[in-house]
């Protein structure tokens, strides 16, 4: 039984098609990289999977439950949206922000343990707006971890991060995937990072062009060529592979 199953999902916005008959499965423990150009429907797909959009056709199940009927499942999903600018004056310390997700009657020590894991313990009293972009992303991960998620969905999380912060960030995701057994689903324009960290790849541009093992995708020049032609906007970053 797949952990997530997206079955024939289509979505239109103002009569314009954003997703067309998208189907794929995600297994428990997958580290799935979703690639596609801007406007390919990656964020829309995530919003459907997260219950933020409900007017899609088709079906999405998590743990074999239809997400439209079983809303409680969303508590088990951590989501890091595309980088938004955080108000520098927003009066929340790192510890306070991470604690926002803490369920009632839960020990605050969990927050401190998670901050240690994401290597932000020494910054716990800093104001969130004063951290670097990479640190802010790690705080958002820490906040998601408080609810002990089974899935972490990240929408282009490393945009605007320098190469070192990107590598640190991906290493943390790899650790969470391997040690904490969290299934990672992340969208990116960075094919090199997908090649380095993911075990599965999905290519999307309104329709699903490819979904399968990373090796299968990257070993086929036709796949990459077809994908590049269909998207035209892939950014090949120089990555320290």
């Amino acid at each position, binding site marked *: 039984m797949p952990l997530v199953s997206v079955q024939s999902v289509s979505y239109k916005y103002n009569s314009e098609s954003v997703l067309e008959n998208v189907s794929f499965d995600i297994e428990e423990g997958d580290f799935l990289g979703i690639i596609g150009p801007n406007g390919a429907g990656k964020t829309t797909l995530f919003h459907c999977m*997260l*219950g*933020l959009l409900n007017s899609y056709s088709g079906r999405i199940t998590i743990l074999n439950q239809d997400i439209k009927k079983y*809303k*409680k499942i*969303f*508590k088990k*999903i951590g*989501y890091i*949206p595309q980088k*938004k600018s955080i108000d520098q*004056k*927003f*009066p*929340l*310390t790192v*510890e*306070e*922000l991470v*604690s*926002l*997700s803490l369920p009632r009657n839960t020990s605050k020590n969990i927050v401190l343990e998670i901050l240690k894991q994401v290597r932000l313990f020494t910054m716990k*009293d800093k*104001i969130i707006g*004063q951290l670097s972009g990479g640190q802010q992303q790690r705080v958002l991960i820490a906040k998601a971890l408080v*609810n002990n998620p089974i899935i972490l969905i990240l929408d282009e999380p490393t945009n605007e991060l320098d190469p070192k912060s990107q590598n640190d960030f991906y290493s943390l995701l790899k650790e969470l995937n391997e040690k904490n057994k969290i299934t990672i689903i992340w969208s990116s324009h960075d094919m090199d990072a997908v090649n380095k960290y993911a075990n599965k790849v999905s290519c999307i541009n309104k329709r699903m062009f490819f979904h399968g093992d990373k090796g299968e995708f990257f070993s086929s020049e036709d796949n990459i060529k077809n994908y590049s032609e269909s998207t035209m906007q892939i950014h090949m970053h120089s990555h320290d592979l």
Partner: protein
Amino acid sequence: MFEVDIFSYGFIQRALFSGLIIAITCTVIGLFLVLKRQSLFGDAISHMAFGGIAIGTFLNIYPVWTAMGFSIVTALAIAKMRQSTKLPSDSMVAIMLSLGLGVGVTLVSLSNGFSVDLFSFLFGSILLVSVQDLYPIIIVAIIVVSMIILYYKKFLYIAFDEEQAKISGIDVEKLNYLFTILVAITIIVSMKLVGILLISSLIVIPNVTALLFNQGFKKTLLISLSLSTFSVFAGVILSYYYNLAPSGIIVLLSASGFIFAYILKTSILK
């Protein structure tokens, strides 16, 4: 210079008691308004209240009730419109301001001009607060503060990131409506203190001042509460001794606190 027995006067006791309660309530609710970038929402509701008071005066109904009803209904309607149309909240605030004033001015002109009562709602009359006036203030303060204590994490989460809050299972829409009602009832009972025209300053100035210090949520709230309660306390005392309008003095003290904090932050603590 000051008489020691000023605190023995009943009207001073009531003014200080009600003033401090309102300062705490306005500051607590105001911090969330400021963080949601809806500082002017308080102003808009107070203008709606003006319309509501004019309706009450015109129909010979106790104006606080009509102000409360009119403000809550229109604020909720506009919140609903904002959510369904995704129009910018500042334009919605502009509509509320104009509508409230429009209704008020029209009805006042029909009632042959302003009455003394209307003036006291516009500019506040904290020294005239009666024992009967204290009850709604206390009840509203208890409701607002307990709701905030109960839901402060959720309100804070919504203010920080509404989308994330929604995904984490928070019923954002319902809590936004609840928050709108809390803002409306806070403003209505606070009108007696600083008046409709100045109420927004009590909601905004202490909180913006506290934000200058870049502290966490709890410390920011503490700084803000200190400034607002000090402004109200000192404002009432000074207005008594110097025969000045208390609402004006309270706002001036609060604004002076902001200027002082700004100078402190930009030239000494930078």
